[in-house]
C-alpha cells in the first residue's frame, strides 16, 4: 500500500474536532433527544399510576387516558423533530465538508491531483464524507446522551446500596477497556477499508476509460481477474472488521450480563444477610437495565465512529495539504516576451529538463522539435505554470512568472493540449469554458480553428452537447475545438502541443495561416514533429532528453546540428507533397 503509514501516527484533526463547528445543531439535537427520552420515561410512570389508581379504585379512563395521549403525541412530535433535525444536520455536514474539500482541491497544483490520484479524491468526496456525516448527526448525540444515562444510572445504583453499587459499577471500566482495545485495533482496519475502496474505484475507472482498448484486445477476462483481486481484498478487510465486532459486541453483552449475575449472587447474599430489601434488589435490576441500554447503543455506534474517524483522517489529509503557492498580484498586459533561465525539472532522481535556457521576443514564432519523451510537453507545462521548475525561472516580459496575478496571466496565455480534453458541456461552453468571452473573440476563434463550417452542419449548432468520450467528434475536430478554446481568450501567447498531429495537412496549413492573419502580434511556441511546416519560423529549438541540443533558424540548424539534419532527412521524402499546399 502506497499510502500506508505507521499506525501510531495520529492525524492532527480528529473527527471530534468537527463538533464545535456544529454546536448549534448538536445542542438542538441533544435537547430534542433529552425531551423525547424524558417523555418516553414518563410513560412507565403513567402506566404505574394508572394501575395504582385502579388498585385504589380511583381509576377513571379520561384521567388516565388524556395525559397518556398527551405524552404520546409529545413523544411523536419530539421524535419526529429529532429525526428531521438529524437528517438536516447530516446533510449540512456532508455539504459543508464536500464544499471545503472541493474548494481545497480547486486551489491545488496539477501535480497534487496527479499524485494523490483522482480516485482517492473521489472516495474522499463520496464515501468518506458519508461516514463522517452519520457520525456528527447520530453518533455524537447517542454518545452524549448515553454517557449521561450511564452516569445517572451509576448514581442511582450507588445511592441505593453502596457495596452492591460499587460491585456493579465495576463493569463500566471493564466495558470501556474492551472498547479501547478493540478500537485501537480496528482503526487501521477502517483506514485500510477506505483505501481498498480507492483501489476499487481506480480499477473500475480504468476499465471504463479503457473500455475501447479492452474490447479491441478482448481483455475482459484480464480485467475481471484484476477486479477480483481488489474485490477479494475488500472482502477480506470487511471480514477482518467483522471479526473484531463479532468479538466485541458479544463480549460487551456478556459483561453486561455479568452485572445481572452480580446482583443475583452478591445482592442475594446482602438480602439474605439483611443488608438490603427484595424491593431494592428489584430496583437494582431495573437500574442496570438503564445502565446497559446506553452501553449497547455505544456498541452499535462504535463501528460508525471507527469508520468516521478513519474517513475523517483521510479527509483531513486533503484539507491539511499545503495549497498551491498563491500567485502574484500584478495585472499587466503582456507584450509577449518569453524567457526560460536554467530551468531544470526533476521527478525523483530523474531530470526531465536540464538547464533549459532560451529567450523569445514578442511576436516571434518558435518551434520545439525533438524525439518522443524529450521533455517537450513538460517544457510547455513549465511555461504555463502547470509544473513548477525544480530550478531556474520562467520570465514573461523579463519579469518572473510569479509576480503576475495567475488569472490575468492565464487569460493572455493560450495552451492547446496534445490530448483532447472535452467537457460534458455544449460546444459553446467547451470553447468559452465558463468565462465571459466577447462574441467577437469567440467568432474569430471559431473561424481561425475552421470550426464554423462544421458547427453549421450540426442541427443544434453550438448548443450541441459533446460528451466526455463522445463519438460525435473526430480526433481532428476535438483538436480544433481545443485550439478554439485557447484562441477565444484572444491570447498574447499561444502554446501548441503537437497540434498538427491530428489535423490533415490541408486544414493544418489553413489554420496556421488563419492564426497569422487573425492574431498578427501573437508569440507562438509550437511543439511539433514536422519540420516542413516550421522551416520559416524565427527559431527552432531542438530538445533531446531534456536538454537543448541546438537552437536557431532552420538554415542555421541544418548547417550546425547533425541530429537536426537526421530528423530532416527522415521527413524529406514526403516534403514534396507537403509543399504543394503552400
Amino acid at each position, binding site marked *: 500500500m502506497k499510502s500506508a503509514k505507521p499506525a501510531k501516527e495520529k492525524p492532527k484533526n480528529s473527527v471530534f474536532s468537527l463538533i464545535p463547528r456544529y454546536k448549534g445543531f448538536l445542542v438542538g439535537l441533544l435537547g430534542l433527544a433529552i425531551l423525547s427520552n424524558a417523555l418516553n420515561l414518563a410513560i412507565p410512570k403513567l402506566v404505574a399510576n394508572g394501575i395504582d389508581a385502579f*388498585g385504589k379504585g380511583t381509576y377513571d379512563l379520561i384521567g388516565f387516558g388524556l395525559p397518556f395521549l398527551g405524552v404520546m403525541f409529545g413523544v411523536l412530535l419530539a421524535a419526529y423533530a429529532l429525526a428531521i433535525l438529524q437528517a438536516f444536520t447530516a446533510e449540512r455536514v*456532508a455539504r459543508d465538508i464536500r464544499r471545503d474539500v472541493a474548494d481545497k482541491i480547486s486551489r491545488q497544483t496539477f501535480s497534487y491531483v496527479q499524485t494523490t490520484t483522482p480516485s482517492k479524491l473521489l472516495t474522499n468526496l463520496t464515501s468518506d464524507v458519508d461516514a463522517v456525516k452519520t457520525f456528527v448527526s447520530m453518533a455524537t448525540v447517542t454518545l452524549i446522551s448515553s454517557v449521561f444515562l450511564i452516569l445517572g444510572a451509576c448514581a442511582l445504583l450507588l445511592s441505593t446500596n453502596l457495596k452492591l453499587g460499587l460491585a456493579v459499577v465495576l463493569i463500566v471500566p471493564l466495558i470501556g477497556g474492551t472498547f479501547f482495545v478493540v478500537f485501537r485495533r480496528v482503526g487501521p482496519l477502517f483506514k485500510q477499508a477506505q483505501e481498498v475502496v480507492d483501489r476499487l474505484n481506480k480499477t473500475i475507472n480504468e476499465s471504463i476509460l479503457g473500455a475501447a482498448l479492452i474490447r479491441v484486445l478482448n481483455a475482459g477476462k484480464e480485467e475481471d481477474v484484476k477486479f477480483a483481486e481488489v474485490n477479494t481484498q475488500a472482502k477480506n478487510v470487511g471480514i477482518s472488521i467483522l471479526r473484531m465486532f*463479532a468479538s466485541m459486541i458479544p463480549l460487551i453483552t*456478556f459483561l453486561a450480563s455479568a452485572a445481572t449475575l452480580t446482583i443475583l449472587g452478591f445482592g442475594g447474599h446482602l438480602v439474605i444477610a439483611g443488608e438490603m430489601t427484595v424491593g431494592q434488589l428489584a430496583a437494582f435490576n431495573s437500574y442496570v437495565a438503564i445502565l446497559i441500554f446506553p452501553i449497547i447503543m455505544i456498541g452499535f455506534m462504535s463501528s460508525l465512529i471507527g469508520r468516521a474517524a478513519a474517513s475523517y483522517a483521510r479527509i483531513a489529509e486533503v484539507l491539511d495539504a499545503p495549497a498551491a503557492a498563491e500567485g502574484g498580484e500584478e495585472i499587466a498586459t503582456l507584450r509577449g516576451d518569453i524567457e526560460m533561465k536554467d530551468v531544470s525539472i526533476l521527478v525523483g532522481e530523474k531530470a526531465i529538463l536540464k538547464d533549459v535556457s532560451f529567450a523569445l521576443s514578442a511576436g516571434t514564432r518558435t518551434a520545439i522539435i525533438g524525439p518522443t519523451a524529450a521533455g517537450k510537453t513538460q517544457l510547455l507545462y513549465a511555461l504555463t505554470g502547470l509544473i513548477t521548475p525544480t530550478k531556474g525561472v520562467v520570465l514573461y516580459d523579463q519579469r518572473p512568472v510569479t509576480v503576475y496575478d495567475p488569472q490575468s496571466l492565464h487569460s493572455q496565455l493560450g495552451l492547446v493540449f496534445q490530448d483532447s480534453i472535452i467537457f460534458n458541456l455544449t460546444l459553446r461552453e467547451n470553447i468559452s469554458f465558463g468565462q465571459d468571452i466577447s462574441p467577437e473573440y469567440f467568432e474569430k476563434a471559431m473561424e481561425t480553428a475552421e470550426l464554423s463550417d462544421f458547427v453549421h452542419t450540426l442541427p443544434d449548432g453550438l448548443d450541441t452537447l459533446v460528451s466526455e468520450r463522445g463519438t460525435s467528434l473526430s480526433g481532428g475536430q476535438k483538436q480544433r475545438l481545443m485550439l478554439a478554446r485557447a484562441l477565444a481568450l484572444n491570447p498574447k501567447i499561444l502554446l501548441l502541443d503537437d497540434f498538427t498531429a491530428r489535423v490533415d495537412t490541408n486544414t493544418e496549413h489553413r489554420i496556421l495561416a488563419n492564426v497569422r492573419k487573425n492574431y498578427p502580434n501573437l508569440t507562438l511556441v509550437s511543439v511539433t514533429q514536422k519540420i516542413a511546416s516550421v522551416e520559416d519560423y524565427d527559431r527552432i529549438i531542438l530538445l533531446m532528453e531534456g536538454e537543448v541540443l541546438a537552437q536557431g533558424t532552420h538554415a542555421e540548424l541544418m548547417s550546425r546540428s547533425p541530429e537536426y539534419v537526421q530528423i530532416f532527412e527522415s521527413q524529406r521524402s514526403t516534403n514534396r507533397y507537403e509543399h504543394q499546399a503552400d
Partner: protein
Amino acid sequence: MNTKPTKPTSSLTGLRKLLPFLKVERGNLAWAALFILVTSTINLGAPFVFGYAVDNFIAKGDYPGVLVTVGVMLAAYLISLGTQYSQMWFMGGVGQRVLFRLRSLIFGKLQQLSIAFFNRQKAGDLISRINNDTDKLNQFFAETLVRFVGTIVIMAGTSIFLLSLNVKLGLAAMAPAVVLLAYTRLLSPWVKSRTAASLKAMGGLSGEVQESLDHFKVIVAFDRRDYFRKQFEIANETNYRAALRAGVANASYSPVYDFASSFAQLIVVVYGLFLISHGAMTIGLLLSFLLYINQFYGPLRQIAMLWQSFQTALAAWDRISEILEQDPGMGKTKAKAQASSAVLEFRGVSFRYSDSGDVLKDISFALERGKTYALVGPTGGGKTTTASLMARLYDPTEGAVLLGGRDLRSYSNEERTKKIGFILQEPFLFSGTVLDNIFYGNTEYAKASHEEKVNALKENRLDGLMARFSEGVDTPVQAGAETISLGQRQLIAFMRAVLRKPELLILDEATANIDTVTEQSLEEVLRQLPEETTRVIIAHRLNTIESADGIFFVNGGKIEGAGSLQQAVDMLMHGKRQS
C-alpha cells in the same frame, strides 16, 4: 442512463430479486438462524430465571440455591457469548460474500457491454453505481440483515407468549402493529423514490468530480479553478437537496413506530383494566403483559431503522439493475461463409451513431491479404468510424463487414480480436509498468515470466524502443498520469498490437505524436510482420502512407479508391470538404 428507467420495484419483488444472492448461502444462513435462536432464547429466558430465584431462593434465605442459579445463568451467558459471536460471524460473512459476488457481477457485466454504452455514460456515475450503491446493499446485508433475523425471532417468540397469556388482549396489543404494517406499505414507495433521487444526485456529483479531476490540467491552465468550484457547488447543492428530501422521508418511520408502541401500552392498560374489572384477568398477568409488550415493540422500533436501510438498498438495487439489464447489443450471430478472396470486405455498409446522420453511406470495398492500405481524408471525414467498424467496436446500421468471407458478427470475441489488431487513436494505459501494458490482454504470454517477455521484445526487434522510457520496461505507469507522454503511449500501443501478430492490423493515427526518426524504426518493424499480414493505416503524415498498396479517400460518407499517392494528395488538397 439513456435507456428507459426500469420501473421502481415494490418491496416484495425487490426482496425476491435479492433472494438469488442469498440462495448459495443457505447453509450459513441456517447456522446463523440456529445461533440466533439460541441467543434469543437465553435472552428471553434470563429474566424468568432471575425472577424465579428471587421468589424461591432469596426470599426464602436459600443462598446455595442462589449460587446454583448464578452458576446456571453464567453457563447460559457463556453459551450466549459463543452463539452471539457465531451469529454475527455467519451473518456478517454472508453479507461480505454477497457484496463480493454482487460487485463481481456488475463488473463482469460492464465488460460485456458495447462501447456505445460507455460513450453515453459519465465514468463517475458508473463508479458511483458500482461502489456507493453496492455499499448501500452491503450495509443492508452485513449490518441490517443480522439484526433483522434476530428481531424477527424475538418478535415471533413474544407474540406467541402474548397470545398464550390472553388471546383477546394479545390481539388488541398487536393491533397497532398491523396498522404500522399498512402505514409502512403505504409510505414505502414514496420513501424509496426519494431515496432513489438522492442516489441519482450522488451519482451526478461523482460524475462531476470525476470529470473535473480527470481534466484538472485544463482547469489549471485556463485558470478556471472557479469553474470547478462553481460546477461542484451546483452538484453539491443538488445532492444536498435530494439527500435532505430523502432524509426527511426516511425520518417518517421511527417516530411513528415509537408512537405505535406507546399506543399498544395504552390499549393494554385500558383494555386490561377493563378485563380485570370483569374478572377476566389478574393484575399480575397485566404486569407481565406490559413487560412482553415492550419485548414485542422494542424490536419493532429496530425494524423501523432496518426498513429504512432496506428501502435504500432497494433503491440502490434498482440503479444497479439498470446496468445488469442492459442489452450487451453486440451478440454473435450465425452466418454462412460467402465466397470472397478478400481478407476484409465492406458490403453495402451504412453507419450512423445514435445521435447523428449517416457517417457512412452504402460503402463497399475489399482489402486483399498481405497488402498495405491507407485511409486518408479530412478530419471528421469518417476514417476512425470506418476503422472501428472493421474491428467491430460498432455494428453497421445496414450492410455487413466480412472477415475472410464470413460476417464479422459471426465470430466470437476471442477469434475476432485474435485476427484483428487495432491501435486506437487515443492510447490508454493501465496502472502498472510499461511491460505490463505491452503484454496487456495477450493470452499467448499470459504465463510468461518477466524475462521471457523481455526476450519476446528482443525477438520482435522492439527492445530498441525501450530506450524511450526512463526506466525501460519497468517504468511505472499511472493511468491518466502525465509521467508517460502521448508519444510514449503510442509506442506502447504499437508494440502491444504488433506482438499479437494479427492478420489485419489497423493503425488509427497510431504514430501521430511520435517523432519521425523513431517512426522510421516502427516502419521497419511493420515491414517485418509476416507476409500475409494486411495493414490499414490512417495517418495525416504522408510519409507514413507512402508505401501503401492502395489508398482510400474517406469523406462525406463516401469511400473512394485513389490510384496513387499523388491522386490522394490532389483529392485532399482540392477535393470538396464536406465535413
